[in-house]
């Protein structure tokens, strides 16, 4: 099987601090993979590197066998990698629909003079992205709120809006940074169904960071564990729960606990 995305031997240093050390991961098409690790393990750094927000100190990142290591963030997105953020970053002062329509911007062909003169080309395109955006909102169940200001939505719906906005980029790889953070068990279950539904319907790969172990173990097919910037384990959920290195990372070693 060819890899959709590959990160090999990536090291990231911020000054003297090594945030990520010789980290490698390969993602296949249609996979649902989880990334877990204690706080400060470097999970979000992995995401930021994957999406072009941080340039790796060493190592290589490839997308469908094309090197994208030094590509800026907006170009990485255009290749087909979309993401959500750990602390919600929606466009609060724009409507829910506009939030999603922004994601279609990179795919539009009408120039600014088309927009200023309202040419037929521009009108057709606006209509197209509006319909597509509405469909995205329907998928996450926010279509009835399309004309609300995004900032007025409750927390759980803002999370969903972020997912809808990322989906609107029409990615082949979707990165979700703690999608279930701050959600109650009901919402978490709902989200789990939503994410699986998105994967099945669009056939895209999903890579997610999460702290809720029940959520990750139930949803992901493969899990990677990170601690202090090192990858310490990788495997199916059942293996990970038994892995001694993982238990040690989360709970500390028996010896240290006793002393």
């Amino acid at each position, binding site marked *: 099987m060819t890899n959709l995305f590959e990160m090999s031997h990536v090291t990231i240093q911020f000054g003297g601090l090594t945030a990520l050390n010789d980290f490698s991961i390969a993602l296949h098409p249609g996979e649902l993979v989880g990334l877990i690790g204690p706080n400060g393990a470097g999970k979000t750094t992995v995401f930021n590197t994957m999406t072009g927000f941080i340039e790796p100190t060493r190592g290589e990142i490839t997308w469908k066998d094309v090197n994208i290591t030094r590509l800026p963030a907006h170009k990485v997105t*255009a290749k087909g990698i979309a993401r959500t953020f750990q602390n919600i*970053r929606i466009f609060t002062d724009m409507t829910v629909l506009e939030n999603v329509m*922004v994601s279609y*911007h990179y795919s539009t062909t009408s120039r*600014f003079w088309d927009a200023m*003169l309202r040419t037929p080309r521009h009108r057709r395109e606006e209509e197209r992205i509006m319909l597509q955006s509405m469909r995205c909102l329907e998928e996450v169940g926010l279509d009835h709120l399309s004309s609300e200001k995004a900032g007025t939505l409750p927390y759980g719906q803002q999370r969903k809006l972020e997912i809808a906005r*990322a989906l609107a980029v029409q990615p082949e790889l979707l990165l979700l940074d703690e999608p279930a953070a701050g959600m109650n068990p009901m919402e978490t279950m709902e989200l789990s169904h939503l994410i699986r539904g998105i994967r099945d319907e669009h056939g895209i790969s999903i890579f997610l960071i999460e702290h809720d172990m029940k959520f990750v173990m139930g949803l992901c097919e493969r899990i990677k564990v990170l601690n202090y910037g090192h990858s310490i384990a990788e495997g199916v959920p059942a293996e990970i729960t038994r892995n001694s290195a993982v238990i040690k990372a989360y709970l500390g070693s028996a010896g240290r606990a006793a002393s």
Partner: protein
Amino acid sequence: MKNRTKLCLNIFALLLLMGVLFLFARYGSDYQIRILTNMAIFITLAVSFNLVNGMCGILHLGPNAFIAIGAYTSALLAMSPAEKQINFIIDQLVWPLSVIQTPFSVSLIAGGLMAALFAFIISFPVFRVRGDYLAIVTFGFGEVVRVLCNAAQGLTNGSLGLKGLVPHTTLWWSWGVAIVTVILLAHFADSTHGRAIKAIREDERAARAMGIDPFRHLLLAFMLSAFFCGLGGGLLAHLITAISPTLFTFMLTFNLLIMIVVGGLGSTTGAIIGAVLFTWGSEALRIVERPWDLGLFTVPGIPGMRMVVFSVILMVVIIFASKGITGRAEFSWDFVMRLRRDRRRPDPQ
């Protein structure tokens, strides 16, 4: 409401505006016409300034540079060679400019293009930074242009300025440009490009993650803004008929800032309202600069008192209504219809 109805209403409103202007042109005093002409120029300037400061959400403090470049370019192109000869007494005007003369309309467009070109050149250092730093850089460029206007004797006639321009700017010219600017920029703001720059304003990181290149979009908005500021500058030059570097100080930027902040930062409607109120207000407030006779003694008139009043108004707006008159809302016929309906059908409770 149907798009067709809206179009009809828009055309009707435009005709109504034309009618009012026609009546003023026909029966109004010179003073009134002058204020209206000025008003339209400031609408052009405020709306294009708002595109950068309100929509992109960056604090740009150098529109006076764009206006100055537009004004000088347009003035130098529209003046007759003979007039230039009279003006440039210390140093001769550089060669190609000293002989060419273009129609007013061409000179206006050229002024806009020159301003846009300048915006393009300075955008590279400007957009490397954000926030307060960007404000300082643009403020610096604003001052640099003013100082250059003072120093480049052979190009701008230095501090003597250019005098005896033909008063080309009529009520119709200024309102025509203002209406076209408002329509084009409102369309731009309400398009996928407008949404992209608003997304950058809301959260630049998230916008980048959605595939938007901040530099390209900010540059586009910056250059568009500069172009229309340049047009406004050309109109201003041919309204006042005499320009000098002192006209394009930071004061001009400050006045534009008052307009868009009081009107509602980020709203084209707000910028228009702000510009109208400011131009009307600065005439109405002339009374505070006149000597006051209080019976027992007379308070002498203080020149510049109007700016103090404006500053106080600005502070009051920032403290009590930080979003300005309209906030970020735009005028729409749907809103007007809702108001009417609400009035007709009283609350059932």
